[in-house]
């Protein structure tokens, strides 16, 4: 995906869909199960640093620095009761982490934006910009590391005693570069405590998650990528139908890509006996936008809820303040994804959707009961999906002008026969995604296939494998969320 801050991933980087990972993971597993607890943690830390350093070893220093600062902050927070000192320590963590994020991710964005404003005011601006590479996963590990400092500050968590354990918490390779953004309360105890060897059902469910994740990445996201690219590269050259197909393709691509990554991360971690949180829970089946945000990138939305929305006052300070808080959270959530106005608008649109939904006062309870029916489920889910898809235009477009062209052209209703290949592939991908999500939702499990009869299981695994074989073999495509 072309972005000013795009991360350069090469084919030989150790990423989940690379051949290198096929070698890397078994080596890690073999070594891991031969060691005792402390040795396991040390080995996982080394493996995590190798995993990250394979991309660019220079940024290991930044990862280590962020780890060191938050471990030290946590350590001193555990030793002092003075509220002023505690606050200063928390501010130190926030400032250091945000400064790292700011310099690597947002510096040029703010400088460029300031320059544009000055130019509009008739002032000549020759502001400096930096030519820097965006470290992979910086937004993920800084947020994870910061959440630890917040939780220790709020006394929800005891400070980590072992720097080794804490360093592994920040750098744990399955979720280091694209999440889920794990809370220390959930992940640290699993690292600190000795782990038992995974049971056969854990191993089989872990392998199944990896298989499903690879399917989503290779057979859905990567297949949709050229269709998306063609639609977004020149919206003006495409018919409205082609743009609609391109938009559906992107909705499927980003879901397949990101939830596929999460599945592989969770499956890999499960093989090591460590559970990672769910990051997606059938978001496109959501019946309203609030439900969508409870099921899409859950680790980020709950992070923003706990550390931003609630401290801002949440919904406790009246309606207007609630709407304001929702807007702030979503605008910053948009900015978290990338330093561009398109992301801000994407976040703003979701803020507006959420505020309107809150204003309408209709809440759909968590969980799901009964079968999917037309009026109660299908129409609201389709409406929600289309609102989300519309906002994806701004998320995906490489500039504001491209996004505006896309929207204008989309609503000109210029009809032309779309490319049959794109149409069939998008329809097939949509069918696959909806089928998997419905099975998972109705069974209440991501590993629903394990509960099927052996014959159906065999057919399902073979179908996933076949799809991976058919659609693999091209250049390795990095996961979209690596650039955030």
């Amino acid at each position, binding site marked *: 995906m072309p972005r000013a801050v795009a991360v350069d991933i090469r084919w030989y980087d150790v990423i989940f869909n690379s*051949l290198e990972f096929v*070698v890397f993971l078994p080596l890690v597993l073999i070594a891991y199960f031969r060691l005792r607890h402390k040795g396991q943690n040390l080995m996982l830390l080394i493996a995590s640093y190798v995993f990250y350093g394979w991309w660019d070893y220079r940024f290991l220093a930044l990862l280590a620095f962020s780890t060191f600062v938050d471990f030290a902050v946590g350590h001193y927070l555990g030793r002092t009761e003075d509220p002023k000192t505690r606050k200063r320590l928390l501010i130190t963590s926030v400032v250091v982490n945000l400064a790292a994020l700011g310099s690597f991710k947002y510096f040029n964005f703010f400088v460029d934006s300031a320059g544009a404003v000055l130019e509009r005011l008739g002032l000549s601006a020759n502001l400096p910009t930096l030519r820097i590479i965006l470290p992979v996963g910086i937004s993920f590990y800084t947020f994870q590391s910061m959440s630890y400092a917040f939780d220790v500050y709020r006394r929800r968590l005891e400070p980590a005693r072992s720097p080794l354990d804490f360093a592994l918490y920040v750098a744990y390779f399955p979720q280091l570069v694209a999440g889920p953004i794990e809370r220390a309360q959930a992940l640290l105890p699993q690292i600190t405590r000795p782990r038992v060897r*995974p*049971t*056969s*059902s*854990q191993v*089989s*469910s*872990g392998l199944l998650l990896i298989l499903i994740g690879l399917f989503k990445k290779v057979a859905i996201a990567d*297949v949709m990528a*050229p269709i998306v*690219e*063609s639609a977004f*590269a*020149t919206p*003006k*050259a495409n018919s409205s139908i082609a743009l609609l197909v391109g938009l559906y393709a992107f909705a499927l691509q980003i879901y397949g890509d990101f939830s596929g990554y999460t599945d592989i991360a969770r499956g890999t971690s*499960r093989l090591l006996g460590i*559970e990672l949180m*769910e990051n997606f*829970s059938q978001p496109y089946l959501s019946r309203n936008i609030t439900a969508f945000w409870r099921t899409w990138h859950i680790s980020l939305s709950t992070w923003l809820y706990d550390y931003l929305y609630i401290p801002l006052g949440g919904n406790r300070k009246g309606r207007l303040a609630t709407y304001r808080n929702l807007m702030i959270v979503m605008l910053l959530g948009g900015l978290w994804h990338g330093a561009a106005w398109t992301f801000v608008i994407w976040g703003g649109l979701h803020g507006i959707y959420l505020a309107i939904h809150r204003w309408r006062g209709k809440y759909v309870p968590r969980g799901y009961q009964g079968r999917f029916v037309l009026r109660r489920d299908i129409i609201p889910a389709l409406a929600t999906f289309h609102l989300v898809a519309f906002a994806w235009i701004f998320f995906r477009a490489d500039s504001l002008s491209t996004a505006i062209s896309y929207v204008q052209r989309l609503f000109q209703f210029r009809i032309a026969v779309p*490319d*049959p*290949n*794109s*149409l*069939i*592939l998008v329809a*097939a991908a949509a069918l696959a995604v909806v089928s998997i999500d419905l099975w*998972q*939702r109705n069974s*209440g*499990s*991501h*590993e629903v296939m*394990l*509960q099927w009869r*052996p*014959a159906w*299981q*065999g*057919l399902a*695994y*073979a*179908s996933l*494998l*076949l799809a991976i*074989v*058919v*659609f693999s*073999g*091209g*250049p390795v495509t990095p996961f979209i969320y690596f650039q955030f």
Partner: protein
Amino acid sequence: MTGHPSALSSPPRRRWVVVTVFVVASLLLAEIIARAVEPSLPPPDQWPTTQTEAKADQIAQLAADGSPIDVVFLGSSVVVQGVDPVAFNKAAGDLTSYNAALDGASLRSVEVWARDVVFPNLDPKVVVIGITTRDMNDQGVSQQEFYRSLLASSGLETLGPKSGVTRLLNEITSLSALVRIRPFLRQPGTTLQHVLGQDEEVELLPGPFGAAPVDDRAFLYDSSESWRNFWRTRHFNDFIMGGQELSALHALITMAVEQERVVFLVEMPFHDDYLTVQPNGGAAVQRLHDVLASIDYGAAFGLIPLEDQYGSEAFRDPAHLNPTGAETLAAELAAYVSDSVPVSTLRTRAGIQP
């Protein structure tokens, strides 16, 4: 949602045996079906276009025959249509040329194509790169699409160094018909059209020495609104010169000069109507002119100045010469190249006696 593994009962070994049997049986069945279907499908394309496919075959054949090629022409469709290699060979006498230009290519693609296919196979002593503003545009959709499809093509995949693991995987996968027919499964619409006998119009293949095929429309000058719209939206949807394409041009020249080839650049002729499809009109052309004039790689490099003799009757559309124009340009290039680099110098430079 409860996805925790503890919620799942531990599956007995027999269960997994049955699952494995079904997986293997399903994969075998798929392979059998693929083997049954494979003969009815055409050989899968190795390259992004039929023309690239045909030129790759021609180049491989020339290399296998040991036929010496002294001069190659590189560029986009403007060079494909604009330089007639047969006319060049006639005019140049002792020199033999091949037109390796590709429709849809820009300089990034040309660099990859030259590096991996043209230079290693033909080992030309002279390289003539024909350029237009379109080829230097970093933002053009068609340029980017062609580049991506070239990089992803299996033809390119088979070239260049491979790791042991990749070679092993290639060997294993080549045993499977399912893997062999997967390009068709990735394009279900096109495959369906083929099965139903509704294939698109067959593309004309290049003639000898990579010459452009002459079709019925070659002499009908087309500057229609649909032509302009196509160029505005596909080639000049946005325009930035000076980034990736220019870097590719520098890399291409550097590589050729390092390999002891003589390199010529030529700014391809265009009709005045061409200016109307460019976002910046004449400014882009002037910028290209300046950029080309500023390139200097010493004695092994030259910029070919063209006579201003290409009127409306020489063009098939504002960007492309017609066969008459292509013949004229070929003769002009032949005269310039022959004068600048005599055959004796060429063969001596390459270690070959004239």
